[in-house]
């Protein structure tokens, strides 16, 4: 953990971690007997589910809960479904937790897909490729995507997975980018590279955006602002302004998938242990985190924290049986001794959050509105929706207020409010 320096006349600055010069070969985690898949749709007991306990699934089979479902997962192994449960995320959204028991004796051939040269066909089968390609928004008719940005940069501190993939598989990424161009018919494809990185050499055919190594310049809103001259309007997503971000690993696995007409499941991960040591790992999607920890002899005790993502804007999980997900790049383990307590103290108005905020949000006033549940005023007057979610405000907060949590909750509640008022309007019409 980076501590406050003794002299702090200037605001603290963080740098993204560059990739190590001498790369270790990734440790390959064997596919475990039980794989866990998270399906982003809750079970509805009123309806007849297509997924049944005990049913046999093939490797590469697409699993949907209901016939009209748009959400799906792909089974990474051949086996049988041994459990169906519900899974709650941090914001209380439910998804379905599927456990698949690997069956060695069954046919292990992977299903091949009928992939055509359009984005709808990719969206139909390849959404859960390692790297979680955003085919859903690319295929959506609502967005007019005119620029695709391939990110070979990591968005959080300590993370190096994207840089690693970019440096190891430049040819695959280039192939993938060609296919992506063909599928989406988007002519402008850019690639982000950390400034001063050696990865650059591989990508001279695309427009290279060299991002600063200063945090948070790799976050989408900052890349839009610094390199594409687009100021993201408050409350909108990059897709709303026609830019789609796709991770290097997603492009890489897209290239592979179109080559073999099958899905692949090998996800690259970085494990950061309690002592800060990095382990590079490849594991099948659906592998339980506990299996990975076992390989590296990482002992987890009560009150430790397992963070999916980096220290600034990752998320903590409550279970060791959290599966490896397509969009999971980093897993960080914190010992309970280094976990800083947050407090219920009021804002003391020291102004350090205001100084450090890259989006110029008056966080000191905003938090007062959020604490009083005044979400609409917070958005209208004090720029709640301008937040780019970098987490720096809560990092420097002298009063140790969980500012980022307040903001995230505020955005969530605001979205709920907006949705319900829209519903009311349509009902009135």
């Amino acid at each position, binding site marked *: 953990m980076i501590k*406050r320096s003794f002299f702090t006349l200037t605001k603290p600055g963080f740098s993204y971690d560059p990739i190590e010069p001498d790369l270790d070969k990734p440790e390959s985690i064997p596919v475990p007997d039980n794989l866990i898949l998270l399906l982003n749709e809750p079970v509805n007991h009123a309806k007849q589910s297509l997924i049944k306990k005990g049913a046999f699934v093939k490797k590469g089979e697409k699993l949907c809960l209901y016939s009209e479902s748009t959400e799906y997962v792909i089974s990474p192994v051949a086996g049988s479904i041994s459990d169906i449960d519900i899974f709650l995320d941090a914001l209380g959204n439910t998804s379905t937790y599927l456990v698949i028991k690997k069956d060695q004796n069954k046919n292990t051939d992977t299903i091949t897909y009928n992939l055509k040269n359009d984005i709808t066909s990719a969206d139909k089968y390849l959404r859960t490729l390692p790297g979680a390609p955003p085919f859903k928004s690319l295929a959506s008719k609502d967005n007019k995507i005119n620029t695709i940005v391939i990110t070979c940069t990591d968005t959080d501190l300590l993370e190096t997975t994207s840089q690693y993939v970019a440096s190891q598989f430049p040819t695959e990424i280039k192939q993938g980018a060609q296919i992506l161009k063909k599928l989406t018919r988007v002519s402008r494809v850019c690639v982000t590279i950390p400034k001063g990185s050696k990865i650059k050499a591989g990508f001279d055919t695309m427009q290279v955006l060299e991002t600063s190594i200063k945090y948070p310049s790799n976050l989408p809103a900052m890349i839009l602002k610094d390199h594409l001259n687009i100021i993201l309007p408050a409350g909108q997503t990059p897709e709303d302004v026609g830019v789609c971000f796709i991770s290097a690993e997603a492009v890489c696995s897209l290239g592979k998938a179109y080559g073999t007409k099958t899905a692949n499941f090998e996800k690259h991960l970085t494990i950061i242990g309690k002592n800060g040591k990095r382990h590079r790992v490849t594991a099948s999607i659906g592998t339980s985190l506990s299996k990975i920890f076992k390989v590296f002899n990482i002992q987890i005790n009560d009150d430790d924290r397992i963070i999916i993502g980096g220290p600034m804007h990752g998320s903590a999980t409550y279970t060791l049986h959290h599966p490896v997900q397509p969009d999971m790049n980093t897993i960080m383990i914190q010992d309970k001794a280094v976990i800083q307590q*947050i407090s219920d103290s009021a804002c003391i108005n020291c102004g350090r959050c205001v100084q450090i905020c890259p989006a*110029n949000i008056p966080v000191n006033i905003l938090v007062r509105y959020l604490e009083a549940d005044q979400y609409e005023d917070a958005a209208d007057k004090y720029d709640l929706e301008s937040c780019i979610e970098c987490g720096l405000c809560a990092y420097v907060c002298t009063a*140790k207020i969980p500012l*980022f949590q307040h903001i995230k909750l505020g955005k969530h509640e605001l979205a709920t409010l907006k949705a319900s008022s829209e519903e009311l309007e349509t009902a009135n019409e």
Partner: protein
Amino acid sequence: MNNYKLTVSHAPFWHDGDSIFKMNLNILIALLPAVIFGIIQFGAPAVGVLALSLSSAMVWEFTMNIISKDKIRIGDLDSAVIGLLFGMMLPATSPWWLVITGTFVAVVIGKIIFGGLGANPFNPALVGMAFLMLSWKTFFDFDSAYINYDFNFTALAPLAALKFQGVSGIDGLFSANGLLMGKQIGAIGSTFGLGLIIGGIYLILRGYTRWEITVSFIAGIIFAAWCFNLADPEKYAGPMIHILSGYTLLGAFFLSTENSSSPVNTIPMLLYGFFIGVMIILMRNIGAYADGTVLAILLFNLVNPLIDSIRPKALGKGIDHA
């Protein structure tokens, strides 16, 4: 594998390790040079006033926490800072009841009834101070307060002398060097200019006070005093004596920079500091008070929310939605 109870919380998972306690502890440390000098200068009565002020401020907060069934918050040292700053603004000869009444007004009326830490619109120590100055004016006549003391320098409060005797009356009595080294009489913690400057710069370097306020505060004093001095050098003194006497340095480094009652955006901080400086000189040169620091800062505490609304546009706000 066993099911462990993991810690789950929201990002970020790092913190710079700072806390309100550490911040206030640093403010107390920064005040020490001036406090120690004050004790050497004014002797045991000064220790009594400072100790009573600091402890009574904490007791008031403790009492109010108990009465309002709130969490006991004296551990964050905020009321200790209020108490010490308050004691430093008193003459060493203040009677005990004056100190206790003052800290009551400072902590209870200045801070707690507005909602406690971070919610006070005025600097609590100054609220208590203004209350005492308006109610028991005679105790703040520093010249009569130290009548029984025997100093080896000009035993005059510079600002009062300036007010009542004019520039010619103090001619040659106060040198910049002497004022910096505390060769003046005044409140316990306000006479040792060098100590206050060192403490203040320490806080700025540690990032606990915002330098913009202090710098523009001093610039405001220099600018206004210089203008007056240019207009009529016979009647109005130059910037030097204004900066190094009275509560000016205490105000510039410790009072006007109180977190809750001062702005946080750059331009408002500069305006806020500058206008306090100008207002102090206006009060001293034209107004009825010998030292206007307390009221000038309180006045601009009042304007703070208004000027702090001058702020940069947030990302993605106020642009055309094409």
